[in-house]
């Protein structure tokens, strides 16, 4: 296992270089650069723009810029955001923290609800519960999450001022609150976004869990296990659940990475201070070092997530061992 870990960790280095390089190429395919937008400002002369280009190193050829960036990364310097004129690290740090809290909370929300519900409706297939919950799940899936966010603000506003905050990560008077109230304030601000981000994921997960249980319940080896006279409890936990969880473990590995960047529109509607919107705006305004910084973080999270998932798979699924998930 130690060898497996070491190998995977070493693998990450070329991967990260490859991914960042391809991203850099993709960004360069888009015509123009961050300063293009300034050309439409009648008060900014082309000379100023050329100066700024030189200041940000945009006048250099592509390869030079990439290797300069990479060299900076090795020294833990992710470069400067052109839009905000501060270091990328300082921009990303706060937002990454918020986003990870939000992403983890909504993952917990959707998984902790979806898996038990999936089990219940699978066991009671075609009961009224199955039908009602499936209907709700489909409804949840048919609403774009930014739309749901919008409806939730509507709802929060309707409840009145003091119930649920309609947006933001914390209140305006946050700094004057006591420690415990700060925590409560943060949690209060998390409720709506977690619900919005969790709902659509939950719907899908619940349906998947349901079908996994249905399939495994009827499979040969469960029948075999039962025929061998194993107790129901052991059949359930050892055979049905552990096998049913296999795809979810893999999914958990990479869904954190998905949530990190995938909520830009929800962030815009709910005024959350997260990475998604920052990244989206950075991409749109071609703020290349900010984009690269986010890609780097996303990549590392994804790779680590996948690695953990592969290890968890061995732990959860009795039929998987390291030899099957790791290269010999």
């Amino acid at each position, binding site marked *: 296992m130690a060898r497996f870990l070491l190998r995977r960790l070493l693998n990450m280095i070329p991967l990260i270089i490859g991914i960042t390089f391809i991203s850099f190429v993709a960004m360069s395919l888009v015509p123009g650069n961050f300063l293009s937008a300034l*050309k439409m400002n009648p008060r900014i002369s082309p000379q100023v723009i050329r100066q700024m280009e030189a200041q940000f190193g945009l006048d250099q050829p592509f390869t030079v810029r990439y290797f300069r960036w990479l060299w900076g990364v090795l020294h833990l310097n992710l470069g400067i955001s052109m839009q*905000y004129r501060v270091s990328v690290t300082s921009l990303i740090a706060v937002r990454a923290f918020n986003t990870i809290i939000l992403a983890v909370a909504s993952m917990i929300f959707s998984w902790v609800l979806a898996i*038990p519900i999936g089990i219940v409706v699978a066991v009671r297939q075609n009961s009224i519960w199955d039908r009602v919950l499936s209907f709700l799940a489909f409804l949840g899936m048919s609403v774009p999450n930014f739309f749901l966010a919008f409806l939730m603000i509507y709802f929060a506003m309707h409840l009145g001022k003091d119930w649920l905050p309609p947006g933001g990560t914390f209140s305006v008077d946050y700094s004057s609150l006591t420690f415990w109230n700060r925590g409560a304030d943060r949690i209060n601000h998390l409720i709506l976004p977690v619900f919005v981000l969790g709902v659509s994921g939950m719907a899908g997960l619940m349906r998947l869990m349901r079908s996994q249980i249905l399939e495994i319940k009827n499979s040969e080896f469960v029948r075999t296990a039962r025929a061998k006279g194993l107790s129901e409890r052991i059949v359930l936990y050892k055979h049905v659940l552990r096998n049913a969880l296999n795809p979810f473990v893999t999914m958990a590995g990479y869904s954190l990475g998905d949530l990190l960047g995938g909520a830009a529109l929800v962030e815009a509607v709910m*005024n959350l201070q997260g990475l998604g919107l920052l990244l989206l705006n950075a991409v749109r305004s071609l703020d290349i070092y900010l984009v690269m910084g986010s890609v780097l973080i996303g990549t590392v999270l994804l790779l680590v997530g996948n690695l953990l998932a592969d290890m968890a798979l061995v732990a959860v699924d009795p039929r998987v061992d390291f030899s099957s998930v790791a290269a010999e």
Partner: protein
Amino acid sequence: MRDELSRAASRVLIATLALAISAGCNVNRAHNDHQRQQILQNYFSSDPQTFNPILVTDLISGRILERVFDPLIQVNNKTTLPEPGIAESWNISPDERTVTFHLRHNVRWFDGQAVTAHDVLFTLAVIYDPKVPNSVRPGLLIDGKAIVADAPDDYTVVMHLPRPFAPLLYSAGIQVIPAHILEPIWKAGNFNHTWGINTPPSEIIGDGAYKLTQYVQGQFVRLERNDDYWMKDEHGEQLPRLHGYVSLIITDSNATYLRYLYGQLDVYSPRPEEVLDIRDKIKQGRLHAQLKDIGIDTGESFFCFNRNPRHYTKDGHTDPKLKWFTDLNFLKAVAHLIDKKAIIDLVEHGLAAPAVSDVSPENKLFYNPNLKDYDYDPQLAAQILESAGYHMVNGRRVDPQGNPIEFNLMTSTGSPEADQICAIFKQDLENPAIGMKVNYQPLEFTTLVEKVDGSFDWDCVMMGLTGSIDPNDGSNFYRSSGNLHLWDPNQPKPATPWEAEIDRLMDEGAVEMDEQKRVPYYWLIQQILHDQLAVIQITRRKVFASWVNTLQDYQPTVWGLYKPEWMYFKND
């Protein structure tokens, strides 16, 4: 097994629900009513990009810093005339080449130091420093040369101009920065990295009505009153009256509107469809607010055709499009095909006016009211096309050489209104009697600009430009050598007689010091642009402002707030 499973699952569910309920905890805090504390809550649509007033290139930073730093002189938003700022008066020498500014003696930086002529000279030096990229410099260059300034004493600044320069009083609205803090930094070459958005707010030393006290990225900006501000009202009371601002940063406009409706914001600039909604809600007593029509948008939006010959000639072969787009008959026909009434009714909900001149009617001094609009008239357009040799062949309009008329229409993404205007334009040009073909392509703003201003790879674009009071600010747009001279930018020398004429008028208009005498130059420029259809104007929105009833003396204008220091909340 069935029971076992669902029992386990139900247990997990119940535990989760219990957790969720306990999580919905309430925050104990003293009841926080910002209006009672005389704090105004407004909003920005994005984050500021810098707290350094010289380096500002974006709208939001500008709006924050205009409260924190006072300008040398400023423009009165109601009269659009220059009025005192840090300088309480100025005079112009008879030869119109020397301008003397007399500074107030009672303006202090937040750290107690007096604001003196040295600060003004330092600010000018920074602006003219080629290593400091800033958007103030172009306005202060006369024929490419810097203005020489000196300070006979601590409270007098004298500017020596190489020639009379009328726009100076509009360009001289520079925000002064503290020399005692920034000069060492500038000399060390670090000015460009100073006072970024990560700077602790207490280190931003200004002299304005408000101090920056807190900035949380993506959340809010907080300003607090500067108790030593120099301004007093007519009864000698200290200004400003409001104790502070909290500006929430909300990117999504629909969410912003909801927050206004539910009392989280005190002021709001409604979009056309929201104007009707607000009006209804006020009438029904569901919203306790004011709604006021404050005028016409100061910017312009237009269709522009690419007339840049450099784009069309490739390998000795010239694209026929160049001929169409430089053919006045073709352009006239297009101008007659813009259904401004439909755009106003459908897109702007009736709350807009047809735009004729490239200068807004709000620019009371320079707007030329005598231009006659090209009326929407598809039949006339078809006639113009026919008589100019553009005929219908197999249901398609072709040029005299037989090339079918087809071109690309670009605009920047993300604006539903622009999408709709382009859809209306497209339908009218593709109408069976006209028979053109328009390929609509919205592009990301940076990409669009790169095409329009970099690679010149475009046919027709729909876009907008912001307006300014002094037309000389639009030099880059009017002059044939300008990079914003969209239809054919950066010309070494004027390609057409009318472009040469505009260049001449721009030169002469800038030298004339008497505002009234400057007017005819700019009227003529508007006339030429209108006749030559270099840009085809669309419509201008009516601008509305809405604010809560408790806010008193709030005086919005299309150019900005008038006397913002006077407003306050009246709580019962």
